[in-house]
């Protein structure tokens, strides 16, 4: 059993301001499935990127097949037999299955590509892996599951010795997951080392031999899957010291009126039958792992993306929100997780951004009343303590925290009663973070209601009065703040229906 094919020792990697990998140890044996787990930002992907040469490590050693190696490009890693099957598939839709598998190394007959030979080779490969796919089929006609199998076949055809699966089941149906697992077991029995990154606890229990947990860029520990259980793994994942006290109890009276009610909302693949209520003066936390569908839910409510079905009620009145315009007219404001793309117009001024949602209030006759606009901006610069030399400064020149305040000012100017804060403190330094928290508390004290989406559990516990947990597009838990713990949230976040 101690036949280690890949051994990563004391891998260290820093980015400006972040210690992404802190002397991490990780090894894979021949013929095992080794699960790599951790919260968002724990460092799993960074570690795999260091392995395959996308990032250069600062220190540490990688020993592959008994020799120290350092791959400088993914191609080099691939040639050596270390291959990642990505979450997003790298397939060209208009080519056939065989063409995709042999892309860049097509068998030639003189000047031309030998299609016949290529199809035969692909068919042989599929037979070996017990995959039932026609090599001549165009990639776009396959289901996501089948496409993924082509990706695996491609990896195997590269003579892979270590295959890394990054969240492979995220887009698969149960039947496809069965097939995938059969293939993974088959690869394992052939002596390959398999790294399996996933958040799905029950899959980990089913497929993996060992589990390594990472947290905040550091190695936490490795356990044999048979010797552990879900609770222990979750504890390893979240067991960090909490610097900020969580909120002890909800500040919202039980009989506070419901300002927003969402009923059976469906939108695309990522929002499935979502229902919840938001009460006046409440901060409703939305927790979950990356890709849980929280942002998609917010965007569907706000009218930024189309809804498939479902109802939205504001103050008990059914509303039909088809566009952000409708949402804003109904008193909803949305702070996007991606501030620079969706929140602000960076090369316009603070004043122009602050009045973006309320410009009609600053138009007299046909002209913009620049004086009134400047006054409005100055009001919020003072109220929110936005650090800018003047209202006419370009927002691009402000820090992340101050840019976020400009977006908040935009919605306050609009006097929105319902605010959706999507990752409000992402990319913001600690000091500005606390200011944003304080501001949110002031807003709910004034009777506004906030939905806060956050991937940081500590932030969720500190700010929320009530917590909704989402997993793969569905609501998988509703917790009152007095009963919520990191563990209980993580339980719900890794629950798969």
């Amino acid at each position, binding site marked *: 059993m101690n036949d280690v094919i890949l051994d990563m020792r004391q891998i260290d990697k820093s980015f400006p301001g972040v210690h992404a990998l802190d002397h991490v140890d990780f090894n894979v044996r021949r013929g095992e499935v080794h699960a790599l787990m951790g919260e968002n930002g724990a460092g799993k992907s960074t570690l795999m990127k260091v392995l395959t040469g996308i990032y250069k490590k600062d220190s540490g050693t990688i020993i592959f097949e008994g020799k120290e190696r350092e791959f400088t490009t993914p191609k080099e890693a691939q040639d050596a037999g270390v291959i990642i099957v990505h979450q997003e598939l790298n397939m060209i839709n208009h080519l056939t299955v065989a063409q995709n598998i042999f892309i860049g190394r097509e068998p030639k007959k003189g000047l031309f590509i030998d299609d016949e030979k290529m199809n035969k080779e692909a068919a042989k490969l599929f037979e070996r892996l017990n995959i039932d796919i026609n090599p001549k089929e165009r990639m776009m006609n396959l289901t996501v599951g089948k496409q993924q199998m082509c990706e695996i076949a491609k990896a195997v055809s590269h003579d892979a010795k270590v295959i890394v699966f990054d969240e492979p089941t995220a887009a698969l149906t149960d039947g496809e997951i069965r097939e995938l697992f059969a293939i993974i077991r088959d690869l394992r029995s052939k002596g390959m080392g398999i790294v399996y990154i996933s958040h799905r606890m029950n899959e980990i229990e089913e497929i993996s031999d060992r589990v390594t947990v990472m947290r905040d860029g550091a190695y936490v520990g490795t356990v044999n899957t048979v010797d552990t259980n879900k609770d222990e793994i979750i504890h390893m994942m979240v067991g960090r010291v909490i610097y900020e006290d969580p909120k002890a109890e909800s500040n919202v009276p039980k009989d506070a009126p419901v300002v927003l009610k969402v009923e059976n909302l469906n939108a695309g693949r990522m929002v499935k039958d979502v229902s919840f209520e938001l009460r006046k003066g409440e901060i409703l936390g939305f927790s979950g792992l990356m890709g849980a569908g929280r942002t998609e839910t917010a965007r569907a409510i706000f009218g*930024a993306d189309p809804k498939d079905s479902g109802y939205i009620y504001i103050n008990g009145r059914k509303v039909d929100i088809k566009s952000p315009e409708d949402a804003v007219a109904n008193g909803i404001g949305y702070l996007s997780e991606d501030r620079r793309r969706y929140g602000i*117009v960076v090369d316009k001024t603070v004043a122009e951004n602050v009045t*973006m949602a309320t410009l009609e209030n600053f*138009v007299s006759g046909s002209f913009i009343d620049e004086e009134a606009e400047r006054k409005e901006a100055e009001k919020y610069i003072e109220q929110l303590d936005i650090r800018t030399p003047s209202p006419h400064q370009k927002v691009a020149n402000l820090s992340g925290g101050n840019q976020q305040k400009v977006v908040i000012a935009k919605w306050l100017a609009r006097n929105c009663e319902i605010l959706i804060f999507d990752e409000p403190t992402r990319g913001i330094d600690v000091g500005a973070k606390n200011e944003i928290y304080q501001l949110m508390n002031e807003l709910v004290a004034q009777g506004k209601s906030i939905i806060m989406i956050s991937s940081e559990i500590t932030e969720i516990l500190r700010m929320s009065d009530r917590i909704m947990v989402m997993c793969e597009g569905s609501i998988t838990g509703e917790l009152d703040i007095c009963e919520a713990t990191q563990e209980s949230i993580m339980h719900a976040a890794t629950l798969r229906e």
Partner: protein
Amino acid sequence: MEKIKNIALVKKIGFNKLVLVFVLILMYFVFALFSPTFISYDRILSALSYSYFLGFLALGVTFVIATGGIDFSIGPVMFASALISGYLLTRSGWPLVLCLVISVLVGLIFGAINGYLVAYWDVAPFITSMGLMQIAKGAGSVFTHTQSVSWPQSSEANGWYRNLVRYSNGSISIPVGLITLLVVAFICAIILNKTKIGRYILCLGSNKEAVRLSGVNVRKWQMLAYVISGTLVGIAAIFFVGAYTTVQPGLGDQYNNEAIAAVVMGGTSMSGGVASIGGTIIGVMIISLLQEGILALGFTKDFQLIITGLIVLTAVYLDVFSNQKKN
């Protein structure tokens, strides 16, 4: 250099624009040196005549480029306007004033269709304007049975419209067109910088999604930019025939490039969000002087095409380059 950039007046007008003005003056002197006729008032008026219709085209397309779009149909649409309204005037005998209104309407309708396709159907402006360019050329041809249309000369009945370009009564010549162009440019600058229309056009050119998520009906404002542009194209048609009277079907493409060259040279960013009406006007003057000067120096028109092409490439390169530096 840094010292000059820091003078208050230079800052207010913009260093780049002053460079352009300097280039314009320098060009004039170079042309005057090689071709002394350039010093004559008539020659200047002739160069100016070219700048009027080109100016209206460029002003219009400034709005479109400010949204991050592009329009390759303006030249042919201008010709379609002039052909259709001119045919109605000279062959069908419709009243002149009505025909002038129709000219503007034709431009407006093309602009509205273009804007609708871009804003509401999310088709790339490059594609829609290519399609409309073909349609405009074809429509002009079909309407006039593939014949050129000659608007009346000054001395003929209905010839007074030419006074819009240049008022002459034997002894004096007044460039009325220049006054009109500058007044319209001033109005455009006001719209772009002081009104809600301009604010939204510039903001959506910069970051359309952020403006949409602020609850603004971005489609409406995006379409409006094309409608403004189309209207100005219709006006440009009047000033084209006012200067040259004859229009042929199936042409007009070259003016797209000249107008876009003038706009980009004037400091309007091809990626949208930044626009300068003053810069556009200076750019138009440079292109107009260039075309007159090249002919005066005895070169053929082909050289002008090459130089205009080079100007577009240089201006776009500088635009991209300065964007990269910013990021």
